[in-house]
């Protein structure tokens, strides 16, 4: 703040500053902080939808039950598979695409940006409907192509077979997740200091050396951001499951997010569902912290 201002003007600036902050602060408190506190509190209760009975404080009972619940454990394993498969693929693939296209002329660059970003801006319902059609057991294009090329002789029930269903979900997730990282990486790679690149090339550095020694450190903040965002999105995979498989078949695509929804909104066990939410938040926080730490060490 400008110290040459009179105390009155400074006070006025302070007040207007706080007033500008107030709307977003109110929304933040009402829609982020308050629900978070309520979520943690109700996770220690047996809160449900029955208005005839009061909620009881049951301390850690929900958390203890969680670790004995085979569906939750299955959902947790599925969620971790989604995270550990999709996050590295998204990061590596988007970095590869970005490194290929970022030096292109404006026209082709925009074309590829649009191609990869389109699934991101398309509504998840529309994307899901198209994929559901492609995976269809009876007339889907995948079965049609594989059958007509002789790869399979009987239709595969992609979403109805527990061997394939989770991988089908991961493939869709990948296509909808790479758009934003590609755009970010293109931007980050374009901002790499070219004088350093040229200097290293003059000193005889190979392309690989240039990338890992010059470019990679400079795009590390972007990589970290992409890692964290992709991890969070993968942990929170819900819409695809809800629209395609409802967690089936036989819990093969049950994720923690979907199980939270099912427990809270179908079984009305709000306390139990919130306990799962807290556990999920802890997992995300731990994984994000590890990513930050690793990135810092690098």
């Amino acid at each position, binding site marked *: 703040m400008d110290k040459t201002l009179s105390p009155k*003007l400074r006070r*006025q*600036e302070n*007040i*207007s500053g706080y*007033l*500008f902050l*107030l*709307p977003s602060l*109110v929304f933040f408190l009402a829609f982020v902080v308050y629900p978070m506190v309520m979520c943690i509190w109700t996770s220690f209760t047996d809160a449900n*939808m*029955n*208005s*005839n009975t009061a909620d009881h404080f049951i301390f850690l009972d929900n958390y203890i039950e969680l670790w004995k619940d085979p569906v939750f454990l299955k959902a947790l394993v599925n969620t971790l598979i989604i995270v550990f498969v999709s996050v590295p693929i998204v990061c590596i693939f988007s970095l590869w695409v970005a490194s290929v296209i970022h030096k292109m002329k404006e026209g082709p660059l925009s074309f590829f940006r649009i191609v990869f970003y389109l699934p991101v801006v398309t509504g998840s319902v529309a994307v899901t409907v198209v994929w559901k059609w492609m*995976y*269809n*057991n*009876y*007339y889907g294009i995948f079965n049609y192509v594989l059958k007509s090329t002789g790869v399979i002789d009987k*239709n595969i*029930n*992609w*979403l*109805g*077979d*527990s061997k394939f*269903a989770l991988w089908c979900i991961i493939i869709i997730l990948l296509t909808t997740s790479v758009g934003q990282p590609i755009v970010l990486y293109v931007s980050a790679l374009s901002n790499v200091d070219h004088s350093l690149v040229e200097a290293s090339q003059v000193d005889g550095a190979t392309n690989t050396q240039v990338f890992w020694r010059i470019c990679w450190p400079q795009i590390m903040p972007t990589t970290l951001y992409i890692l964290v965002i992709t991890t969070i999105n993968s942990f929170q995979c819900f819409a695809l499951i809800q629209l395609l*498989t*409802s*967690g*089936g*078949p*036989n*819990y093969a695509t049950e994720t923690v997010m979907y199980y939270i929804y*099912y427990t809270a*909104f*179908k*079984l*009305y066990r709000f306390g139990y569902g919130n306990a799962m939410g807290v556990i999920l938040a802890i997992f995300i926080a731990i994984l994000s912290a590890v990513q930050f730490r690793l990135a810092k060490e690098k």
Partner: protein
Amino acid sequence: MKKIISLLLALCLVVSMASVVMAADAPEGASEITLWTYPIGNWGNEATVKELTDAFTAETGIAVKVEYLTYADGDDKVNTAITAKQAPDLIMEGPERLVSNWGANGYMVDIADLFEEEDKAEINPAALAACFAPDGAAYEYPLVMTAHCMAINYNAFVEAGADQYIDKETHTWTSEQFLAAVNALYETFGDPIGAIYCNGQGGDQGTRALVNNLCGGSFTNPEHTAYTWDDEKNIQALKILYDLNGIDYDASIVGGDEIANFYNGIFKMAFCWNIAQQLNPNSADTGAGLTLNGDEIVFMAFPSEDGVAKLQGGIWGFGIFDNGDAGKIEAAKTFIKYMCDSEHTADAVRASNFFAVRGTTEGIDISGIWSDNEIMNEYTKLMPMLGDYYQVTTNWAAARTAWWNMLQQVGAGDGSEEAIAAAVADFCAQANGQ
């Protein structure tokens, strides 16, 4: 000057936010009530419902604001509204939601006072019973009912020579005939003939009725206090269906997908069917009782050992959410009486494409409102086969999900009787809250 303008802008933001909050809390008079309706026939159609509500408003002066729900996310919307204390005044659905769920959880108004002795005598006993909770409180006033059934592609049946196994006159067949028909169809057309859809969401009544009727199993006990679908007859039926060529347990499709596949000619039979589908099997309006390529659709009772099925019923009516506003509750009651028990009831019933739960109302005979509709008349042959309305059994929401999961597990298993029995026992126990 800039500082003053910025201060004013900030104040405007705060004031506008506050006004939004205050506006949301502004009290409304009982001259307007809100109705949320699931897609029950044309009660999901804005133009039809507007006609009905406009007529109601003209007569009573009470405006009705209608919101249309879907079965895919309707429950979530209602539950969210309940927890936010923004529930509608009126809701139109069946007793499994109004009585067993929201009523049992204390969110509905007891409307037992709307049932006069004359009404009780006029309303179908099964529909009447379903609207009352065990403690005697009524959380629903019934308007219409139907029997859920299945459907076959008659042209395909003729082509495969399977038409000999059905009684087209009575719309019935035995389990033995059903199996023979599927085999004949499979020999002619190969896979798929039909599917035990088990992805989840709506249409569960179709798979339940198929399994329960095939060998004479039950779903709940007669008192509606426990789920009994782990009986041997159901296990036997599930095993028969597992072994049957042409019928697969398909965890990738829901009831709606099954109907679409049947309508498109992929399936030769559908288990998720009722009169609404028979009258209008597709959104393209290409004709009642016809598939996309013009094949004749014949509705059928589910196959049973003796050929007399116990069909799953559907009952729909209105309930009132207890929002603590006596004026709105009274207005909502007026609406219910207007739609369900007055000279206007016939119009309300027609809008649903289902059958009235009563033959007369206020001395007016409404039993013949479908006399001019050949399909509806034909469909009445199924109504005497209506079985127990067990959807009011405790823990219904969990039981439905357990049913889907059980079917998925049976379908994914090796088909042995032990594996099927284990899946059935496991999920039936879950349904019973064990």
